[in-house]
């Protein structure tokens, strides 16, 4: 693990290295260097499997944290590369040319967090939320209750007690 980190840190500007377990570590990379770092890890360090791509919304700091988790099938280790993006200008370089399923992840991140990946095929198409009008729902400042109150009409509760229903049907005179 440390060897991989030393190799990476001699080539890229890294910060905030954290080894969680023997086979899992996370490191933060600069935004401009992410695609080259991830390509280097795939092609030279044998991290050939993209496990997942996800985002964490740090609303208080005004940042999005993008996590790319990679896996090496020879050493059986996971390595997570993290990038911090500005919440106001959430644009990231695409990696769909490296993995086929990365475009699905990017499509989901665009829909759920509003992070744009220019050039990724079909990134603007709705994936899960077809005909969604509101703001990206996985952002932490999205208020679900307020949105549903504003968007959907209130339907009054129609509840009849079974006892009353039976009585009305069986003994309508009473």
């Amino acid at each position: 693990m440390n060897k991989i980190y030393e190799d990476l840190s001699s080539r890229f500007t890294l910060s905030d290295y954290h080894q969680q377990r023997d086979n899992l570590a996370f490191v933060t990379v600069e935004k401009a260097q992410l695609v080259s770092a991830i390509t280097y890890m795939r092609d030279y360090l044998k991290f050939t499997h993209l496990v997942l791509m996800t985002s964490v919304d740090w609303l208080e700091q005004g940042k999005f944290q993008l996590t790319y988790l990679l896996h090496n099938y020879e050493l059986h280790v996971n390595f997570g590369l993290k990038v911090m993006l500005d919440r106001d200008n959430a644009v990231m370089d695409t990696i769909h040319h490296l993995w086929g399923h990365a475009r699905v992840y990017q499509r989901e991140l665009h829909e759920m967090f509003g992070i744009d990946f220019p050039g990724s095929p079909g990134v603007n198409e709705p994936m899960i939320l077809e005909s969604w009008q509101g703001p990206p729902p996985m952002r932490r400042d999205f208020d679900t209750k307020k949105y549903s109150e504003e968007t959907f009409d209130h339907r009054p509760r129609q509840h009849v007690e079974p006892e009353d229903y039976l009585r009305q049907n069986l003994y309508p005179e009473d």
Partner: protein
Amino acid sequence: MNDKYPPIVDGKSVYDLDSQKYLKMWQGPQHPGVTGNMSLELDISGDQIIKCNTHVGYLHRGFEKLMERRRYINCFPIVCRICVPEPDTNEYLFAAATEELLGVEIPERAKWLRTLDLELSRLASFFMWIGGQSGAFGSGTVAQWSIAYRDYVLDLFEELTGARIYHMYMIPGGVRGGLPEGWIQHAEKVLDGASKLLDEIYYVTFHNSVFKSRAKGLGIITPDLIDRFGVVGPNVRGSGIARDLRKDSPYLVYDQLDFNIETETAGDTYARTLVRWKEMHQSISLIRQIIMLMPKSGPLYTTLPNVLHLKVPAGETYVKAESTRGEYGYYMVSDGSEFPRKVTVRGPSYSHGMALLEHLAVGVNIADTHGLMISLHTYPPEIER
């Protein structure tokens, strides 16, 4: 190039739907190809697919959003609903991620019981799958046998955990209970029946000329596709590559059990079916080993402080386990509060069901689409969560 396919200009196929030579057809959301709802938008020429677009979102319940506003113990009834036929992997991974961030070690007996529960749920999930696989190729008999037999496995779950589908058995810190009296005898009976049924399924399925002619050569996963699309689990083992998380990075007590990684080389639907059929036998053997080796007494859980006011130290982790579809993972970020900052579920269907299926479906007959889809073993709730 087959003249059925439209001409390719600038890397994109150009065809005119108004020419009546090509047709757009929707498969789903309800169809025999998957357990759940997911639809395919197919462009077809004759009866061959020339383009496939997958549409998901029919089962979106916003689990990841819900978990942001709930305490760790409140998330428990939510996570198992992410995958209906095999909920235990979710329970285990959520519990394991929470325990890792808390720094809690679980007792030895709980580890064995968790492994037992995971293997039982693998067996139940495979029984669901094999019915769909043979049903998609026109053999409904196997589907009736296997879905009916799955209920006997669910009976074992009911006896062990109190529930048939969503067990909520693996709480953070351990498991809820030990083996009830007489459970082992019941399990032996069910496992004996299961291995007999599997042999019958073998003769009906793999000696069947219809199944052979339709499944062989369908949806071949070549080695170059594996890393490109992040293929995992039985799909990759069907292509001759021995990768199994239970062997490669053992969790719970899998390092103390005796089993081999089952592989086939052809990479088509037939090979994947055979791999999964062998893994059902493997599960049965593993359950027998666990019952024989597990400690009969000992604590079931580590006592945690009041779970309703549990504050998890800040940090992040990723835990993974081998489900019936391959690598299942939970990425959990905590900010030190009572609520998880973010829980991301990595379902294996995410890569199989979307990008890989769109790639493999081109050139397949309409009638074989279901067989192809279910041979990738997709559970749509994992995709949309």
